[in-house]
């Protein structure tokens, strides 16, 4: 089923990746291959194992069996921070921020995350603000500059989603894993986010989970459909969306009509 092209390098490759929760196989022998530089969408019914797969790829969960290669290096079983240091960044499906810090401080922290600057307990915190232009640029991109100095506890849900995205961007990742980046956003924001993702995807690899087919359709080079922890179908968007199995298992007739 996997079409291995000789020339394109591979960003992520999993072999027989499996995660079992107390006897429940959430991810079941998945062989996934994401080509470097592509936008790869992961879709599938609720509970198909998409978020779990993300958690495995980013080290938040340890696989029951199987291996994970990121840029040809084995990261199986490594903790999240180590994986992040290999240039892998993720956003969370359920927003996850530092409630008492401002958006600006979030981005500053994210920019510092991959350096060893964070250990400098003898330096002034002003060190963090050094890259003001970058910080504001990142916030501008997601439309949060206006709210840069508000503690994020006071932001609305959609604004928090946007901040999530800017944090991922700040890490300058080679590989981005976006878990439902547009969930909870208004239409206008969705379009803007699509644009944003398209822009930042240039020169990067993106793996994307979204239930919004418009997002998937307009961004993804390739789509993998998961069902019950297994790969159901894989291919370009137009091919997959017309796949009978995908229609019955996921898209449904109504939406497709």
């Amino acid at each position, binding site marked *: 089923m996997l079409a291995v092209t000789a020339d394109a390098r591979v960003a992520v490759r999993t072999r027989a990746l499996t995660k079992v929760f107390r006897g429940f196989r959430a991810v079941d022998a998945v062989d996934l291959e994401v080509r470097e530089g592509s936008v790869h969408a992961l879709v599938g019914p609720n509970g198909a194992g998409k978020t779990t797969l993300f958690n495995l790829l980013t080290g938040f969960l340890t696989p029951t069996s199987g291996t994970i290669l990121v840029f040809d290096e084995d990261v199986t079983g490594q903790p999240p921070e180590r994986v992040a240091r290999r240039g892998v960044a993720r956003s969370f499906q359920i927003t996850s921020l530092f409630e*008492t810090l401002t958006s600006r401080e979030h981005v500053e922290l994210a920019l510092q995350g991959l350096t060893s600057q964070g250990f400098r307990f003898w330096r002034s915190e002003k060190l963090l603000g050094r890259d003001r232009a970058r910080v504001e640029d990142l916030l501008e991109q997601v439309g949060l500059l206006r709210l840069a100095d508000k503690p994020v506890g006071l932001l609305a849900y959609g604004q928090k989603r946007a901040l999530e995205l800017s944090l991922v961007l700040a890490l300058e990742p080679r590989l981005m894993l976006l878990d439902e980046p547009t969930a909870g956003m208004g239409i206008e924001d969705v379009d803007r986010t699509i644009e944003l993702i398209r822009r930042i995807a240039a020169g990067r690899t993106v793996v994307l989970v979204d239930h919004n087919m418009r997002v998937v359709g307009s961004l993804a080079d390739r789509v993998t459909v998961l069902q019950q922890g297994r790969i159901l179908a894989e291919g370009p968007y137009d091919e997959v969306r017309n796949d009978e199995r995908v229609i019955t298992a996921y898209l449904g007739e109504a939406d497709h009509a």
Partner: protein
Amino acid sequence: MTQSAVTEAPVTGVDPPAVGRDLRRRWILLAVGLTAALVLPWFIYPPVAMDIVAMALFAIALDILLGYTGLLSFGHAAFWGSSAYVTGLIATHYGVPFPVAVIGGAVFAMILAVPLGYLSVRRSGIYFAMVTLAFAQMVYFIGYQWSDLTGGENGLQGVPRSFFGIDLVETDSFYFYYAALPILLLGMWAAWRIVHSPFGRVLMSIRDNTPRARALGYEVEKYKLIAFVLSAGLTGLAGGVFAINHGFVALTELHWSTSGEVVLMAVLGGIGTLWGGVLGAFLAVMLADYLASSGFHGIDLVTGTVFILVVLLFRRGLWGTVRHRWLVRQQRRTAAAGPAER
């Protein structure tokens, strides 16, 4: 469900750090604090004044963990006490000037903090509190039983106060105060530096949301461990001075009630504020001192009640409440008034 950071106390009852950024206010506070430290032994019996400053550093060191990392250590007596013992032993056996002995004690506390911290930081929240408490209890038992070294329940008596042969400092606690003060002030400055550094910012982010910090690439355990060790070191500095001040070391310094006392000071003053520790230490030491000769017996009754009241009514602590009021007033200036919560 979002929680307002201002109107309701979030996880640790800490306000966003934005407040400390008013530079002018910061300098005024600093000047007031320094002056107070300098004139203290004129108004308060010098050994007691010394205790206040040492305890203040102790509370501040604890606050690095409690207020800024979100880790309640209920076993900090282990570092305070062990540094006191090591300081005392060095001073007794080698006759070095006391600052050297104190540094020795602090270094020991940091070394001890490495294994204890390594184990403890794997847990967070309330687990962390319980685990540190248990480990401190272990250290206490060791101190109790290893009486050849520690003097057991008799304590380590007769710790000298060598100070480059300067007699006045060595015998008069008034002058000793000024000799030891710089060490403690340096410790406080270090604490301030730590929480207002890039490192401190990472600690706060870990406090607020650990998985998120991980995803940003921060090696959370390492950060917590370093914070733990630094906190232990500053605690050790304070404990060492305390030991020299008293001229002996007793097992109570290792006892869990000492851990509880310092937590009280930090909470009473307001966690996540640093200044709060100073205030808390001042009040707690003065209270104990006053009650000793007041004829009122049952200091724990007072201590316990204060604990309960502070936690129930002034969760931000004294300093924290003041700071919070100030913050709210700032906000009010920018927003129209709404009705009170019903």
